[in-house]
Structures are given as C-alpha cells and as structure tokens.
C-alpha cells in the first residue's frame, strides 16, 4: 500500500472513530451526569461493554458493582496514570489534551461506588504535567464543590518504579509504603487504599466512562467486536514511517490490517502490549486479532522491521524486567535474572541451544507461580520471541 493510500485510510478511520480526542464542549456534562442515578450510570457502562484499558480488560461495570456493594465508611477512586509500560505514551497525551474528560470519569465512578475521594497517581517522570494538571484538578474540585458534591481529587506523584503500575503496588506506594504488590485476595474493590474499597482505573478507561455517560453507550458499543467493544488508544513506535504515534483505533482489527496502515510493509514482528506483552511474528499477522479475543494490549504496539535483531529486543526487555521486578517474589526476581543470563549464555555458546528449552519451562513456571501480574507477564516476551525467533537468539 502506498503511503498516500495509507494516509487516506488513516484519515477515514479517524473520522469514524474519534471519541477521546474529539474537541467538544462539555459544559453541561457535570449537570447531566449528576442528575443521573448511580444505577443508571452503572447500567450504561455495563451496556457499553467497556473493559479496563490498562491491558487486563476487566469489565468496568463489574469492578464498579463490586466496589458499590462493598460496605465501608470510605471508598476511593484512583486514576492510574503511572504509565510505565515500555512503548506506552497515550495517558500522557490524554492527560495533556483531555484531562477535562478524565476527571468527570472519576466523578462518575465515585458516584456509582459511593466514594468521596479520588487520587491521580501520576508517573514520576510526568512531573512536568503537574502544573497544568493541578490547575485543572483545582478548577474541577471547585466546580463540583459549588454543585454541592462531596468529592475531590488529589494528585500524587510516583517515584519511578514500573511495578507501581500494578494496582496493589500503586496503592502501597500511595499509602507511603514500598511499592510491592499485595496478596490477592482481597482485591482492591473490597480492601484497597487504607483497607477501604477502592477502584483503580487506567486514565483511558475513565475517559471512555465519561464519554459513555455523556453520549450514551451506543457510541462506544457500536465499535469493535463482541468481546472487545469500542475503541482504544494505541501508541505506535518502532519501525513506522509515520511521525505521529498516538491513534484511537477500533478494537478487533488484525495485526495484518494494522501493519498495513502504519508501516511500509517490511515488518517481521510486532510486540503487542509493551515489554510485558506478546511478540507476534509476521506469519501470524493475518489471524491475530488485536483485542481480548486475540492479543490484548494496554496500547503499546512496537513494530520491528527485518533489520532488527530479536535477540537485542528480548535482551532489552529482560534487562528491563531484571531491574524493574520489585524483588519480592522468587520466580520474578531470580527468574528474570536467569532468563537474561540464559540467553546471553546461549548466544555466547557457554550453554547449548537446548538450554533455551529449560528457560522456556522456567518462563512457564514464572507465569503460573509469580505473585503479581507483572511477574507473570514478564515471561511473555521471552516465550513468544524464543518460540518464533529461536535462531536469532541462538546465533
């Protein structure tokens, strides 16, 4: 596909799918939202089919329902803006351009579950967003106070640990503790921040929640597939010839369609979902759906062309995990070290290539015995890259 065709198609897509970054006047949104009963709001979100946009895809309405049904004197809403997954940079853009849609999402969630306090946990490296965002939050707090609502938002800055994107580690960090994932159960919806029911949502989920409440579930539900309703903001990086990296796309497209839109065609693999995601090789592009029925993603799509060494790619990811594991549990802490050391040893000939099979088994064990989502998914790139690019790891 030549580049002008691609540009035309992207423009067409943009026209059809434009929820998040659409410039719109939402002056009366709060009034409309506040008139709605929590039951109505919950019903609308349920009807929309919205699932968490951080990558795991838990049904949003269900999270709200659990937290709503939990009995407690205090409840909390947390906006997870720790965006630390390599290759992900959409939340930054959303917070910069559309904070006005994030904050109402927090309010809506708070109304449904019965919370009076919200936190935005902002990635430490995004401190430069703080002045503008603080202003926005202050105005918002003021506005809802005037409307007699008992809800306010506070921004807390992270300190640069990847693991704090995991919701329970985030809560620990928010409480002032070392950022380490908690044991689950209990889940945050029953015992979260300060032991109170807490809903933690990705920035993007909250925006879609706003949009669904404001414009009705249909605008969302009409897009995507039955398992993966709606649209999603993607962060495209790597070997793409487009300058811009952030696109809101309909869910459910195949990687083949995706690659055709965003590259010149010479792509041998796509890493879907960041460092903790899966590497999809070219031969699987056509039958791999981007979505919960195929490969889920928090938004990161990294394209690799034929000039790239998948050994280097994997090495890079493993170095990342070796450093960013919280260090708490054995499978993740030492497992990541061993995977990294292992591919180095095979590459250098210190270990035979069959050693890769041992490492794949190790990675499989990490997936089922690491304590948190991070540790379990740290093995994903290893398993998929070794499966599809074994020769590149060996030689």
């Amino acid at each position: 596909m030549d580049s002008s065709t691609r540009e035309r198609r992207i423009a067409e897509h943009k026209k059809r799918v434009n929820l998040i970054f659409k410039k719109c006047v939402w002056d009366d949104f709060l009034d409309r939202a506040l008139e709605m009963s929590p039951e109505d709001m919950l019903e609308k979100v349920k009807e929309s089919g919205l699932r968490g946009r951080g990558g795991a895809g838990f049904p949003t309405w269900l999270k709200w329902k659990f937290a709503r049904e939990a009995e407690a004197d205090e409840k909390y809403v947390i906006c997870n803006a720790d965006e630390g997954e390599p290759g992900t940079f959409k939340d930054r853009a959303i917070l910069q351009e559309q904070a006005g849609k994030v904050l109402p999402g927090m309010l809506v969630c708070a109304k449904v579950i019965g919370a009076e306090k919200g936190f935005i946990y902002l990635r430490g490296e995004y401190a430069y967003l703080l002045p503008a965002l603080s202003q926005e939050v202050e105005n918002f707090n003021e506005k809802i106070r005037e409307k007699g609502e008992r809800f306010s938002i506070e921004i807390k800055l992270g300190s640069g640990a990847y693991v704090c994107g995991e919701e329970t580690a985030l809560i620990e960090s928010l409480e002032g503790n070392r950022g380490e994932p908690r044991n689950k159960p209990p889940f945050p919806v029953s015992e979260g921040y300060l032991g109170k029911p807490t809903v933690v949502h990705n920035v993007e989920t909250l925006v879609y929640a706003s949009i669904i409440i404001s414009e009705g579930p249909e605008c969302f539900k009409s897009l995507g597939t039955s398992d993966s309703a709606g649209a999603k903001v993607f962060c495209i990086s790597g070997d793409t010839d487009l300058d811009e990296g952030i696109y809101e796309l309909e869910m459910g497209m195949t990687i083949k369609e995706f690659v055709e839109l965003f590259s010149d065609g010479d792509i041998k693999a796509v890493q879907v979902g960041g460092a903790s995601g899966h590497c999809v090789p070219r031969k699987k592009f056509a039958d791999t759906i981007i979505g919960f029925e195929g490969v889920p993603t928090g938004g990161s799509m990294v394209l690799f062309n034929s000039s790239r060494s998948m050994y280097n790619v994997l090495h890079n990811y493993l170095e990342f995990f070796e450093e960013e594991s919280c260090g708490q549990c054995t499978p993740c802490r030492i497992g990541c070290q061993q995977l990294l050391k292992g591919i180095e040893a095979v590459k250098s000939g210190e270990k035979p290539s069959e050693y890769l099979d041992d490492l794949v088994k190790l990675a499989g064990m990490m997936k089922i015995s690491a304590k948190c989502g991070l540790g379990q998914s740290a093995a994903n790139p290893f398993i998929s890259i070794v499966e599809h690019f074994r020769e590149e790891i060996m030689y």
Partner: protein
Amino acid sequence: MTQKQLRIKINGDTYLMYEGQSVLEACRSAGINIPNLCYLEGVSRRASCGICVVEIEGARTLVRSCVTPIREGIEIFTNTGRVRKARHTNIKLLLANHPRNCLECDKNRQCELQKLSDDLDVRDTSYPKIRKKHYDIDASSPSLTRDHEKCILCARCVEVCSQVQSVDAIEIAERGMEAHVSTFFNKGLDASECVNCGQCLLVCPTGALMAKHETGSVWKAIDEPGRHVVVQAAPAIRAAIGEEFGFEAGMPLTGTLAAALRKMGFDRVFDTQFTADLTIIEEGNELISRIKNKGVLPLITSCSPGWIRFAETFFPKLLPNLSTCKSPQQMFGTLAKTYYAEKMNIDPSKITVVSVMPCTAKKFEARRPEMNSAAEYWRNKGRRLPGGTRDVDSVITTRELADMIRESGIDFARLTGEKFDEPFGISTGAGTIFGATGGVMEAALRTAYAELTGKSLKDLNLKAVRGMGGVREASVDINGLTLKVAVAHGLKNAREVMEQVSKGKSPYHFIEIMTCPGGCIGGGGQPVPATTDVREKRIKAVYSEDESMPLRESHKNPAVIALYDEFLKEPLSGVSHSMLHTEYSRRDLYPGI
C-alpha cells in the same frame, strides 16, 4: 460464637474446616504438609518465596496457600505435576544465588533451605549463579552478623523486627536484582535501632543471620593453666537445652545442665538464678522505696538488655522509670570478681566469668562500657586489674553451649543430674521463673508482700501475671496498698505500655518488660525452632521447676542472706549501689550517621 465450618476438598477428599483458615492451615489440619520458606504464622504474610503454591480448581495460576483463605466448596490440589515443578523451579532459583558451602555455615543441618531441598529431592540447580551487587558481611553488632550472600529475601526477619518488636531496624532496600535487606543507609546493625534481641535470627531459614560466636574464647580460658573459670547459667537455659539433644520441648534439665558444665571443665558451675534472687531483693526494695518516698513511678524492670537499648533509643525521657538494678548476669559478673574472689581468696585477674544466656543481647550488655564495676572496686582498694577487664568476659548462647557440649564428647542424654556449686549455685523458685514472661513480677511480688506484711503470700502462684497475653495486668492488696502491676513481652507490646507511661496515663506501680515473646525462654540465643508452641512448653517447664523447689521466695535464699551479711550489708546500701546498680543514657537513633 462457634466458628463457621466450610466444606472443602483437598486432593479429592472432603473435609470440614473453619472459615478464616488459610489453604495452608487447612491442609495442615488435614495432615498434608505444605513446604514453605517465608511464611511465619501470625507474623509474616509476605508470600514471597513461591514454595507453598498449590492448585485451586478454576484458578488460572497456582496460588500461594499461606495467604489464600479457604472458601466453601474450594477444591485444592497439593501434589500435582505443576505444583511439584513450580516448587522445584523456585527452590532451584533460590539455590542458584545461594552459596552451597554448607559445611562452612553455622546453620548447617538446621537450615530450612537445606532441609527443604532435601525433602523435595532437589539435588542440583541447573541455573548459574548470578552476581548480585556485593555487600560485605555486617559484623558491626556485638550480637549478630548478617551475610547478604546467604539471604533468600524471605523477609521473615524484616517482619519480625517490625511486627513483633516494632523496632524496624531492617527493611528491604532497592528493587529487582538489587533488592536486599538493609539497615538505614546500610550503615550496619550497630548503627541502627537494632536492640540485639536476635528474634530475626530465630526465624531466618538460612544462615544469613547468625549470632556472634564466643566459644573460642571460652575454650581458651578453660584450657589456660591457673585460670579460674566460673560459669553462670541463666534460668531459661535448663528449660530449652534439651531440645538441642533430642528431648521434647519443655523438659527441665537443671541437674543435667550442671553436670555437663562441670564435665566441660569449668572450675565452678554457678547459677544466674542466685543473682536473680538478689535482683529481686534490690528491685523489690527499690519499688518500696519509690512508693514510700514518692519517687518516679511506674518502676520498670531492667534485666532484659534488648529492652534497655529499646528504652534508651525510643523512650529516653522515661529512663528515670527504669530500675537502676543491673541484670542478674551483670550482678553475677561483678560479685564473682569481688565478693567471691575475696571470699575464696582468688586473684580477681585470674577469674574468667562465662555466661550461658538464652539471649544475644546479653553479649551486647556485657560489653557496655559501664559494666566493669569489679575493676572499679579493686581500683578503690588500690589494685589495678588488667586493662579491658570486664565483669563478664564471655557470653555464649544456649546454642553455643550445645555446640560445646557436643564438641566435648559428652553424651548429654545419659548424664546423671548434679547440683550447682556453692555459694552462687543456691537459688529459689523465684529465680527460676525469671526465665518466663511475668516471672520477675511474680518473684518480686512474693518478696514485696513478705517484706511489707511480714508473712508469705498464701498462694505463691500468682497466676494473674502468667500466660502469653501480650500485656497482662494485676492488682495485689498489700497492707491496704493496692499494688497495680503490668507485664509486657515482645517490644511491640512494650511500646504500647510505654506510650501510656509517656502520656502520664499509666495506672501501674510496677511494670515488667521482657524483650522477647515468652520472656527469656524465647530469647534469640535459644534453640530453633522457637514457635509459640515451643515457647509455651518451655514456660511450663519453668513453672514446674519452680514448684519443685524447696524455697520459692528470693529473700529466703540463704546464700543471698549471707551475701548481705558478709558484703553488701543491706539492700540499696552504698556497696549495693556501686556493685549492683547502674545507669542508662539516651541513644541517638542513628548513632553512626
């Protein structure tokens, strides 16, 4: 209220278990052991080691049985291929970074990692050792050493230090491959809030945390011709030493202990219970004097050196509340090199005092600069003892003593009981119960009652102050005075009591505080494992020993009476003050920084 029962399945069999139990506990109740390295009942829920994993029907991943609660209808599988493989993998991962020179390790044969590898039939690890950041062994503390190389980051030590002791001297620092247990700015234990209690090393599954050894200096003293080596054994030793030699926990072995010490070659085998009785006389009189003269109350006991350091660090303003009495160990050391030396006509510079203590903090206490009253005593008499003379020369733990007994080739189990030597081997049941939480209080009350009323308590067993409750209180009516007392063990409980004193809201006259859960019988120098169950059994041994003694009140100890007649004159006398009392000083939180 009866606890709700849940119907669960373990490996296909149905069981009724109580709601609130973890999967691990439920399996244990069903007779299925689930291996683990980081779990610590009631203390640690870190769930970090990944060894206790099991399958739960319907779960995508394996789950950690130690922190997963059971629910109605749950189906648990503890012995599937996946479970075994995951456990193997995780042990191998731990072994990859763990030194395998077990022979050189003090924990050899008592190491949980070693035992678990053996139990699970892990013979080798295919994974290479990966150089982590290297940290030197932390040997700064007089009581403990920390070796990062052997640490498997189970964090039991961190949890005990925080949850049981509220000291928080250690924490996990950094993350990922660089995660390690560290003191504040990694300045070493001695520059931290560490009180040397050693509860951390009791729970360390490997040899990463060890007590400092002093067996070498003890053997050297015994071997030296012309040296008069006296040994004192603390009350808690007799209640636990048997565990090192295959006896059930809770078997009091006083006579056997005395026999073993004598066979090892000590010149005199004495009993710290003698100075425990003495402590009661001094401290009891201190209490009466403070009440009569409206002195600082509540009076708080001072025999537990971990607690002393805790108070000096966290509650320096309350140091006037502490009894000025030295601990029995230090009273013994002083008297051995003064009164005893004079009485027996032995050159004090030829006397070596060895303590067998259930405690790692005693090593620290013996090194406190002010603990050299004997040298002071002789200086006042115009005699200079060699530089560096301490009242107590070496302190060994129960475990070190067991090592020495084994090394001596003594068949401990076959020894015939013997008596301690006179005069410092004579003691009462009141001295015995020093070993258990509440014991000092009970002993003090027995004597205070007699002192103030002229007659003994009708029932010497003051059950109100016994038990394992974290903080226990009691009131005793003595001649119209309602004496209110409290007992706390474990520093977290102590902190609670001290906060109350700090706020001026403490209703008590007298408080006993012991650093370790269960009191001295649960000290950091005792045999491992030291579970709550084991501690309770040792306490039982202490009280049964007390009941079997002909004398059970400190003031009736004939050797103590003689000591006052011949040397001290009377309680709280000038001699007593210079020999048996001490002072405390504020400690900066981070002395090294």
